[in-house]
């Protein structure tokens, strides 16, 4: 068995940690960009890149409030993202059981 069964979008350390962190919140809850950056220890540019890829796939939703110097972005896991993460962890478990 190979890692081909794992969602390649999620099977990247930074994006996996982003989704797991968001999944720790209750459904519908959001996390601010700055708190997420603080928790994950990623640079702003790196985090933005990963968030954009996850958002493009429909796994997360981002909301921006304010503008200019006081712009705040919050991020939430979508139901598709939660399902994708559940599927990923189930596939990972199967993969590890098969080793």
């Amino acid at each position, binding site marked *: 068995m190979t890692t081909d069964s794992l969602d390649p979008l999620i099977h990247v350390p930074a994006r996996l940690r982003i989704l*797991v962190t968001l999944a720790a919140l209750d459904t519908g*809850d959001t996390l*601010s960009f700055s708190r997420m950056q603080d928790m994950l220890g990623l640079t702003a*540019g*790196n985090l933005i*890149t990963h968030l*954009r890829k996850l958002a493009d796939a429909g796994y997360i939703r981002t909301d*921006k409030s304010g503008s200019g110097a006081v712009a705040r972005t919050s991020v939430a896991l979508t139901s598709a993202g939660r399902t994708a993460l559940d599927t990923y962890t189930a596939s990972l478990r199967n993969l590890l059981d098969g080793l």
Partner: protein
Amino acid sequence: MSETDDLDQGGRDDDDDGVLEPGRAAELIKQTQVRARREFDTSSPIAAVLGAAVFLFGYGAVWWSLRDQQVYTGPAGWSIVVLYGLIVVTGIVAWRLFHRATSGVGGRAHRQMEAAGVALLAAGVAAWMVQGALRYLGAGFEIVYGVYGPTVPLIALAAASTGFAASLGKWAELCLAVAIMLVAAGSTFFGPKGAWGLTGVGCAVALVVYAVVVTVRFRRFARS
């Protein structure tokens, strides 16, 4: 605040995370879950132990100053200072811990916390208003400040907490609130000394047990 959290700005296209082995991925998931749970959890054992100290030493100080009174004349000034000093210090620490856990978190959980805050405030204000009314209507100091004071506002706050704990499925918090209500209610049968002494010891024990339960629960989760 700097403009670092604008997703419209260009981000570095950095996918250079190397090959992720399945075992490492599972480890990463567990580490991240543990970290997230520790960061977001509002059930703080530290705050619970500090709360236990308020009951044990704060209520204990008032009980100590009342213990030899054959006729109720009220607690000594120093004991009130100890009680409220501990309440203020614990309140500040608990608020900082709570703020750290909920910082940056929005949505339904945030609104639930706000609603819980309003309910707790209303319960406390209502209980203290009744205390004022009792004194206004001529009830004695022994009842108003000796029995009602250390117990009924506490029961009101715990009762408000039970509703939220039950609705959120926070069973440890529900058990803690119920224990506090029962201890405080039961202690009223023993007059001012019993109200301060038994409530102090009983609630301190309940909070220490709660702190142990929360700590064990987290360690089990981290090891699972």
